[in-house]
């Protein structure tokens, strides 16, 4: 009678409600010991398969045993799909245990839903999580709250220290002496990911994910925890820092939930310098941003070609930030920016990284004497690039204020210029182009605006002598 009841329960969960039934979830739901839950699941699978061989049932198993890899002996615990069960079993030297992990109707593509299934029920039973568990320790007694808060701080510090150490040492094992992972690299994902995430770190992490999903091994994440800070540097620009911090924290919690062994990638050391340099460059380039906000980088043909899409993304983000800052700046001021080609080279984080000192002089060179323009090399007068704001009435009757660059001579000559920008020569009938144009255009048709600009230049030039 009781046998039938639990079988019916499981049938209802799996078939009618389309749930994923893990042994842990079942033990909490029915209030039975985990070993009994495992047995129930096994019975259900056997009966169901006998009754109806075409039943849509996917089963995952937890396999544990000892494995000899590269001369090292290690204990491996893995959650595998039914199809891969025999293969994994054959690799183990000694199979310590096999039991049903979960039953579900759907074919799962990765192990995420298994964790999701257990998460809520475990959270609601947190106080008595070992009530039905086979893992018991008499010495494990809850601490007093005051003790636990101070110890958690110590743990965080030591953990951060450890993770940075292990990154530096490139040690990715628990128990001190695990073998490097056997890579089951699938070429197709690597190729696809290579198209838009060319950083080696992304690839190794992706292949690591692939190995995990293929064998459905739920591996422990101290190595993944090492990767998470690295990932955070790269991906934070895409997904936001909050998500990355949570990801780091969750990996730590996953370690506690699934006590399993790491199978790890040895190539983190290669990625370390690459990760460090973009991060460093991004920081230095961010400092230079306020200076560069009003510089029109599109004019410069000297931009180093960006090597991969990720750097393009970061550049887009920086460009976006610049655009936002542009209207906020005070339009009444004229600002002088000396030419600084070195700053642009330093801005693109492509290896080998250009040294950061070129960035530092950028803010400091404002008071320095302006450099001579290459195009006006023959001209003995010094010219400097000046940011001016022009206000005029356009064709629609709107007053438009634009910031444009003009080259003006330091000697303040009247001959205005080959160097006038397009805003000056825009006749009122044309549509207004709000974005700044190329700096060095030939002289356009002189209009009244040109004369006006002449006068403006001469007036304001007086105030710029510092």
């Amino acid at each position, binding site marked *: 009678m009781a046998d039938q009841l639990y079988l019916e329960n499981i049938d209802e969960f799996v078939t009618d409600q389309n749930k994923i039934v893990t042994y842990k979830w079942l033990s909490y739901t029915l209030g039975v010991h985990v070993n009994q839950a495992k047995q129930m699941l096994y019975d259900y699978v056997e009966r169901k398969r006998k009754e109806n061989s075409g039943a849509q049932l996917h089963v995952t198993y937890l396999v544990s045993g000892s494995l000899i890899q590269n001369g090292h002996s290690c204990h491996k615990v893995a959650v595998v799909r039914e199809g891969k069960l025999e293969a994994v079993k054959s690799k183990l030297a000694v199979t310590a245990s096999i039991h049903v992990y979960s039953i*579900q109707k759907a074919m*799962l593509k990765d192990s995420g839903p298994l964790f999701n299934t257990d998460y809520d029920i475990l959270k609601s039973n947190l106080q008595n999580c070992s009530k039905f568990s086979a893992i018991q320790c008499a010495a494990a007694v809850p601490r007093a709250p005051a003790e636990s808060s101070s110890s958690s701080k110590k743990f965080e510090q030591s953990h951060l220290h450890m993770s940075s150490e292990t990154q530096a040492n490139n040690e990715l094992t628990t128990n001190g002496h695990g073998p490097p992972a056997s890579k089951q690299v699938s070429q197709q994902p690597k190729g696809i*990911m290579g198209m*838009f*995430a060319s950083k080696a770190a992304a690839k190794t992490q*992706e292949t690591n994910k692939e190995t995990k999903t293929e064998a459905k091994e739920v591996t422990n994440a101290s190595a993944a925890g090492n990767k998470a800070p690295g990932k955070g540097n790269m991906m934070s620009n895409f997904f936001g820092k909050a998500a990355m911090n949570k990801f780091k924290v*969750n990996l730590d919690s996953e370690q506690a939930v699934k006590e399993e062994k790491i199978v790890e990638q040895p190539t983190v050391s290669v990625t370390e310098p690459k990760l460090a340099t973009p991060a460093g460059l991004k920081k230095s380039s961010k400092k230079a941003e306020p200076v560069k906000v009003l510089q029109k980088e599109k004019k410069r043909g000297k931009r180093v070609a960006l090597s991969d899409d990720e750097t393009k993304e970061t550049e887009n983000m920086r460009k976006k930030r610049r655009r936002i800052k542009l209207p906020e700046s005070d339009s009444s001021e004229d600002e002088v920016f000396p030419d600084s080609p070195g700053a642009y080279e330093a801005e693109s984080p492509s290896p080998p990284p250009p040294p950061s000192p070129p960035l530092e002089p950028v803010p400091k060179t404002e008071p320095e004497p302006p450099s001579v323009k290459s195009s006006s090399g023959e001209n003995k007068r010094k010219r400097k690039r000046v940011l001016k704001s022009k206000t005029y009435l356009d064709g629609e009757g709107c007053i438009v204020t634009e910031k444009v660059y003009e080259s003006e001579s330091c000697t303040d000559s009247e001959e205005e210029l080959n160097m006038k920008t397009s805003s000056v020569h825009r006749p009122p009938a044309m549509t207004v182009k709000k974005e700044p144009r190329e700096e060095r255009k030939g002289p356009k048709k002189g209009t009244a605006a040109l004369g006006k600009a002449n006068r403006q230049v001469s007036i304001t030039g007086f105030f710029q002598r510092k």
Partner: protein
Amino acid sequence: MTTLTRQDLNFGQGREAGPAGPGAGASGPAGFLERATGLCPPAVVADVLCEFLEVAVHLILYVREVYPVGIFQKRKKYNVPVQMSCHPELNQYIQDTLHCVKPLLEKNDVEKVVVVILDKEHRPVEKFVFEITQPPLLSISSDSLLSHVEQLLRAFILKISVCDAVLDHNPPGCTFTVLVHTREAATRNMEKIQVIK
């Protein structure tokens, strides 16, 4: 078909919605609720919904194999692992779409958001419908409300992950699109705004 209920977090504020409800009942909790409502304006609700829809769309694309699995990466949301795409253009497309939906969500003009999977001939093969409705005012604290909402959204994620059991395989070469169904008033309001402009 799933129903996503838009939790109205402006509980207890005693606005135009007649009697204030829980706020008027007791003086102690009323003060807390009035302070708490400052934390949950419609913008926050729209944010939560948009974040969830983004995760859901990515997960649907992963589970239904609209794009190769190689572009997806495991990330964390609501304390569980979810698969999100790394392809910048795809991400941008999804974000832009939801960016447009957000103002409608804030005004509660959205009736449902539908993710449609189309085959090569642009015929719909599958639809994932997220119905958005406004429930009655709730009388629980904002902390437990948020964790409750998180739990429910986790359940959504889980349901999407196992939808394979009830769906057939899609033909190769599928694409997807996102449709937003608004309530009638929204269309009139939008037309009004257009006329004024």
